């Protein structure tokens, strides 16, 4: 079972100064260029583009072959992810099935201009996991842009892949040893396959994989350290 409460900040240590009241301000200030990360083209490339096209086929014409292709790539990864999050073997399998039923049903609403196919699939699987393990509904983000208030100037409305903030996250990547950080950037932000990275960097595929695994463990620790302690069973 999952611990339901993920966000319970600990009492502040006495040494901290005031100032933990932090807000996220609405108006956009988009002028902090990333230090050292040549990131991400906006248009999906390679595998990402292929997955987006498959998902659109499923949406447009209920294409079972395209669906099967998506299934063969994503189902084993969704399952690994669920197992990693503490789901049992049978629960993970069940979540995979329910996720793909929803992927089929909602494929027509997928918009490749708004999100990568992998991100879209990830959010569905995430919500199914919460449905299954906590028996409660996660409040979903309304994906219909029309419903939103127009709160930002047009230039602020950039596609997600245009990574110009979440600098703390990229700082965490920058803290990795250089050989790991570079592979992480290639794999995460350029969506390069492990094979492509190995070819480009002239290092063996096994080395690419083991370095990425090391790097990812560190990133995961860095990114979830805060919430982990309140989420004891969720590891």
């Amino acid at each position, binding site marked *: 079972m999952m611990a339901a409460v993920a*966000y319970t900040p600990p009492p502040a240590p006495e040494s*901290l100064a005031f100032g933990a009241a932090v807000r996220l301000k*609405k108006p*956009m200030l988009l002028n902090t260029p990333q230090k050292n990360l040549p990131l991400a083209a906006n248009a999906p490339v390679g595998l990402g583009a292929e997955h987006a096209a498959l998902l659109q086929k499923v949406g447009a014409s209920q294409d079972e072959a395209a669906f099967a292709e998506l299934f063969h790539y994503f189902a084993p990864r969704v399952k690994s992810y669920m197992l990693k999050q503490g789901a049992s073997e049978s629960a993970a399998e069940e979540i995979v099935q329910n996720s793909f039923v929803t992927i089929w049903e909602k494929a027509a609403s997928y918009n490749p201009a708004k999100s990568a196919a992998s991100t879209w699939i990830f959010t569905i699987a995430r919500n199914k996991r919460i449905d299954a393990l906590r028996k*409660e509904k996660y409040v979903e983000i309304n994906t219909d842009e029309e419903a939103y208030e127009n709160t930002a100037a047009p230039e602020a409305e950039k596609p997600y*892949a245009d990574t110009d903030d979440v600098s703390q996250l990229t700082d965490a990547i920058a803290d990795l040893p250089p050989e790991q950080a570079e592979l992480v950037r290639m794999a*995460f932000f350029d969506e390069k396959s492990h094979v492509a990275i190995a070819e480009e960097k002239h290092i063996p595929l096994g080395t690419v994989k083991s370095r*990425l695994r090391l790097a990812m463990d560190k990133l995961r620790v860095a990114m979830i350290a*805060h919430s982990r302690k309140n989420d004891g069973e969720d590891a």
Partner: protein
Amino acid sequence: MNPLSPVDMLLMNYAAGRLCQEESLIVAAAVALNSEARRKVARFESMGAKLMCAEDPTQVSASCLSSIMRKIEQKKAEAREAVTVVAEQKMPTPEGLNIPDVIYTMISSVCGHRMSDWTRAASNTAVIELHMLEPKPEPKRLRIMKIAPHQETERHRHIGAEVTLVLHGSYTDGIGRYAKGDIIVINDARIEHKPVAEEEGCVCLILTESPVRFMNPMSRILHTFWRT
């Protein structure tokens, strides 16, 4: 090493599926009002997707895909048989609740369509208490709070963490100015503040883990009465 601010942490935890339902409501509502929150959540979800895809694949059962196709067929058949459901009627919203429809819809999706009316609360505020439809093992206090234009509230501290989303209008509290779409996370018990609504007044969605502690002993006693 904790490189993220409390607000970013909240958004990241939304993306990772780690929030409780009340918190997920606040983030989903914030995303509808605040394009920066929307973009950040999208990035964190993209990061989550990349972590997921980078996992070593685990073999799924041989019958997995066929089970999925069978479930899809089954649901299609059920849908054909289903009687058309009458659209749920939108209850009249309490007077003075100036919130966008998209937010109202999100709230009623987890709290139901019956919203109680405003009740007067401590320090010149009015509140609507919200209760989740699904029972919680550790319920938190979720409410909509209204401060009339230029009204001052009592100076107070927070014993537990508090997450606030401004739904309408704005307020200042000596630490900053907060307007529609801003998320404020207070997780330091030593922060003492005195919110004052600006000219439009202010409506906020507030999640608290324990009652606030008022600085003035008299209002602390009054507050106890108000709660009961």
